[in-house]
């Protein structure tokens, strides 16, 4: 995992020369949506084989000779011991010291990776700044692979591509940082929860140090697998839904009065859905709130959150819209007048 994990894979563009952006040898199927034409004829002569996946030597293999060596042992298990839990062999504490030390060593590796990501990020920011300066022509050759430095058209084109690519990478960094912050928060909250349970010797990131597994004395709570087995699938799904709401916020559904609703989910891309209820009452409500609210500032504020890639969905505004448009116009006019009257 961290061994080979660096700024790689999808950062294809940097691959051929690690120090320069190279847009010369881009795979057009992957990055330019080159069309693949459908034919009927059999053809194994000119197989497309960029990765080597179609050559038979590349067919994956597991150590098959090993795969069938499973045997069930005859065993006489000792009776369940009447002793206390602390008499059970292989207590957590046995492993504590060694695992803790090894974890610390592994963390050093992770930190090297982390440092590299931060450095790379610095470089990207510098490059971006240089490319956005008026004398970018002077700098681009040290950032991007240029075929003909006298071809201004190429320079211009590659500047655009490079800036786009750098911004993409910086966005990736931002996503990574956001996930890191969230993880740190999760760990902190978990440790807090544990220490309040009276298990204050346990810290996430450490092995239990009091010799007991923290699960020894825990009664199954309502979140345990066991108790969730007693729920029906529907109940369980509803439970997950509300957990999700609590963590990420409400799903907002805006009725558009034309048989459609705009659903804004804090996790998914927003989308339009069909709504059966086309009542013209102005009660856009959140899908999960038990009582319908009016357009309170709370809901409106939520509309301001960043919307992840909006997915275009084809839809046509229903006939209702035209039929009612005149009514609505006059209604709005009335409303405006009344508001106006209030303010005066």
């Amino acid at each position, binding site marked *: 995992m961290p061994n080979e994990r660096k700024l790689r894979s999808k950062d294809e563009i940097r691959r051929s020369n690690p120090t320069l952006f190279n847009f010369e040898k881009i795979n057009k199927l992957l990055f330019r949506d080159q069309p693949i034409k459908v034919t009927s004829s059999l053809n194994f002569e000119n197989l497309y084989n960029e990765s080597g996946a179609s050559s038979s030597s590349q067919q994956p293999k597991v150590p098959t000779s090993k*795969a069938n060596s499973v045997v069930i042992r005859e065993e006489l298990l000792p009776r369940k011991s009447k002793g206390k839990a602390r008499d059970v*062999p292989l207590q957590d504490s046995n492993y504590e010291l060694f695992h803790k030390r090894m974890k610390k060593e592994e963390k050093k*590796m992770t930190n090297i990776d982390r440092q590299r990501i931060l450095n790379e990020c610095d470089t990207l920011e510098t490059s971006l700044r240089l490319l956005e300066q008026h004398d970018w022509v002077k700098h681009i050759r040290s950032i991007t692979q240029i075929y003909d430095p006298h071809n201004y058209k190429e320079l211009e084109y590659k500047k655009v591509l490079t800036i786009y690519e750098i911004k993409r990478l910086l966005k990736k960094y931002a996503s990574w940082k956001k996930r890191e912050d969230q993880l740190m928060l999760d760990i902190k909250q978990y440790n807090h929860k544990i220490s309040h349970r009276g298990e204050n010797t346990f810290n996430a990131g450490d092995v239990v140090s009091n010799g007991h597994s923290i699960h020894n004395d825990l009664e199954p709570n309502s979140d345990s697998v066991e108790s969730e087995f007693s729920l029906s699938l529907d109940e369980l799904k509803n439970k997950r839904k509300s957990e999700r709401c609590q963590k990420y916020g409400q799903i907002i559904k805006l009725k558009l009065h034309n048989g459609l609703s705009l659903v804004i989910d804090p996790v998914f891309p927003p989308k339009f859905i069909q709504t059966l209820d086309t009542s013209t009452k102005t009660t856009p409500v959140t899908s999960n709130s038990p009582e319908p609210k009016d357009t309170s500032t709370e809901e409106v504020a939520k509309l301001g959150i960043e919307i992840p890639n909006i997915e275009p969905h084809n839809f046509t505004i229903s006939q209702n819209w035209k039929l009612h448009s005149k009514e609505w116009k006059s209604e709005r006019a009335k409303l405006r007048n009344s508001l106006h009257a209030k303010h005066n």
Partner: protein
Amino acid sequence: MGKSSEFYGVLEQPNIRRICFGKYEIDSWYGNAAYFGADHKTLGYKKITANEKNGQLITAMRKPSLNGHSTTQIDNTTDTASTTPQSQSSQYWLDKLYVCEYCFKYTDVEQECQAHRISCTFNKTYPPVGKLMYRDEYSQYIITKVRGFENVLFTQNLCLFGKLFLDNKSVYYNVDPFDFYIVYGHDPTDDESSNLKFKPMGFFSKEVLSWDCDNNLACICVFPPFQRKGLGNLLIEFSYELAAVTAGQKFSGPEFPLSPFGKISYYNYWSKKLTLTLYEHIIKEGIISFNLTEIANLTGFRREDILITLEYMKVLHRSSRKRASSKGSTTKSEDENVYFSKANFQKWCSDNHIDVKQEKSMLNPNYLVL
């Protein structure tokens, strides 16, 4: 391969002769140095305990290698007294390792493991840790999510055990930034008269802090006694369902490079899924041209994974006109067209006994509780 080029924890050959995993005895597929102390024969936790008493500490230390990558090496310079493993007559560092099939704790003493398994706190009808994410009421398979930092020792031991069947795993102890998805089921060889227990049968890990946010899976492993039940497929399908409700993972896939087990499982899964997709949306619809993004939209797969699978299926070819390749090869000629051959596709289906109208998946989306 000399000692100096050993990657951390990774060995070319299995270094434990046999693994006793609960009631099963199995071979490991790969070596795992991370279980051991620097003497390459004592389990690390036993070594450290013994040496602690003598006031000296010897562990398998790691340091960054010279090429600047954070790949690490076993450094046994601190342990000059020990014999080098290469000079030993056997490749094995240990004859048998005993692993609890419920919590993955390990030892080289059979009695310890036996006694432990009986009273193991994880030896329960239902898994005592984790959150239910999938509950198949028909097949009786469930998948739970266990966060590394919430169950450190359990997930560390899971990783260490998994390494015996994975060639490329390199995180065993620093589990904090990983989530683990574990598939449990009833073991058909268990005594049905006694209380049937959900046993862990395999897992995949997902790195919360992976640099590529489109990685939906880091390592995947189904334990040998439970292979050939389609569980690898189930876990992979699940990983895509999970990605579908994870921000930023509209298109996603496994971390590369894949282990041999991962490669087989993925090529199998991708090719089947793509076969169905191509049949439904391209062939049946009479489409004359498509691009990878369109297929990505239909499947949630990354474009590069789609391309590699289409190559694997041998259904893509270039123009049959041979192009006189110019020396500089900077001239982009017109015949760089890529074709999808319906006839090749037909052959792929018949060679692999895929009936596009019959294929069923392991995962039933109705049972997802994400």
